[in-house]
């Protein structure tokens, strides 16, 4: 084991190998690895973001669904209310109408009664006149005794 020129040759080889590795081996591989690392990191970030988005979307869809349900419930309730209102209204209207009809009928009946009574009254007065005329043996001048007759009619 004596030191000889091998020392320098070996050192030269070493220097060349280091230069080669520094220049041609390390940088491309490191670049590839770093770029892959970046791709993976980006992919993971994207996945994370997508997951977050999905969560948000799910939450929003749940919100929308809940809102829709609430709205539907509201609509149903208001419809029911409106329906019962309409029924009530119709009931009220029908009652009013019925009352009106009844009132009309009553009025008509009253009128009819009145008319019949009037007729009856005139007929009665005529009968009375005729009767009285027969009794008195003479015609009662309807015109002359009109006011008397009227008074009689009113008394009837």
């Amino acid at each position, binding site marked *: *084991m*004596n*030191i*000889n*020129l*091998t*020392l*320098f*040759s*070996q*050192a030269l*080889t*070493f*220097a*060349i*190998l*280091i230069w*080669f*590795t*520094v220049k*041609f*081996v*390390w*940088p*491309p*591989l*490191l*670049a*590839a*690895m770093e*770029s*892959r690392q970046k*791709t993976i990191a980006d992919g993971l970030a994207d996945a994370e973001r997508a997951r977050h988005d999905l969560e948000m979307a799910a939450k929003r869809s749940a919100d929308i669904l809940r809102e829709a349900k609430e709205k539907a419930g509201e609509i149903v309730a208001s419809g029911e209310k409106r329906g019962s209102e309409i029924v009530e209204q119709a009931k009220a209207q029908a009652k009013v109408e019925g009352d009106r009809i009844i009132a009309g009928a009553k009025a008509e009946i009253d009128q009819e009664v009145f008319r019949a009574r009037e007729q009856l009254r005139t007929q009665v007065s005529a009968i009375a006149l005729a009767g009285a005329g027969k009794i008195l043996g003479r015609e009662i001048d309807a015109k002359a005794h009109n006011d008397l007759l009227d008074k009689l009619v009113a008394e009837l």
Partner: protein
Amino acid sequence: MSTEQELTPTSYIGHHLSFNVKQVAEGGFWSVNFDTLVVSGLLGLIIFGFLWWVVRGATAGVPGKRQAFIELLVEFIDGQVKGIFHGDRNKFLAPAALTVFVWVLAMNAMDFLPADIMAWIFHHVFGQEHFRSVPTSDINATFALALSVWLLMIFFSIKVKGLGGFIHELFCAPFGANPLVWPFNLLFNMVEYVSKPLSHSMRLFGNMYAGEVIFLLIGMWAATGFSGTIFGALLGGVWAIFHILIVALQAYIFMMLMVAYIAMAHESH
């Protein structure tokens, strides 16, 4: 064994532990361990070629099995460096740590090649009498790495703190800025600067060298007869399995020390 000389334990071990030395010029220093250079260079070529091939086809989409494996490795190294160093590690330190870890691991793993079969192949196929297949059991290789790390350490220390800051730290840390303790500070720092590359390289070298020697000792026992062969094979298996841990652990320790040294160079005291 392929040598014609008489086979003794000493010659066996000596044969396996001698380098394929090629003389470049006159003098003891001007020679190279051809085996160390070839094996480490080939491993570097194969491994970093493979890395480059995988990385060139790297996709940011779903990775294939090959790419996933390399990414696992890169992420492991990156995590280790991140724990120690708090600067821009992608510019230099992390890829350098990857280089050291992978290369040292591969060089250590050459220890798994069966020594005698490899010797036979080197002799009969390549015609080499001496050829060691584990570069990290050559002190030249580990010391070259440690020395490079040491130079990087000083380079970054000066780059981050400036030459003035570097010199200031030599004299004023760790005991304080009082001129009375300047010599002690300098002595302390010198010891540190000397011990760092030595311990860094010797740790790896020692582990791998010892592992090789133990394989050779087991191989010698296996040559002593029938029971020796059985126990040698058993022990060789056990030691190889344990050696997997050592090989990976030493590569990891070497890388971590490098990262720690260079990270420390970035910190001001």
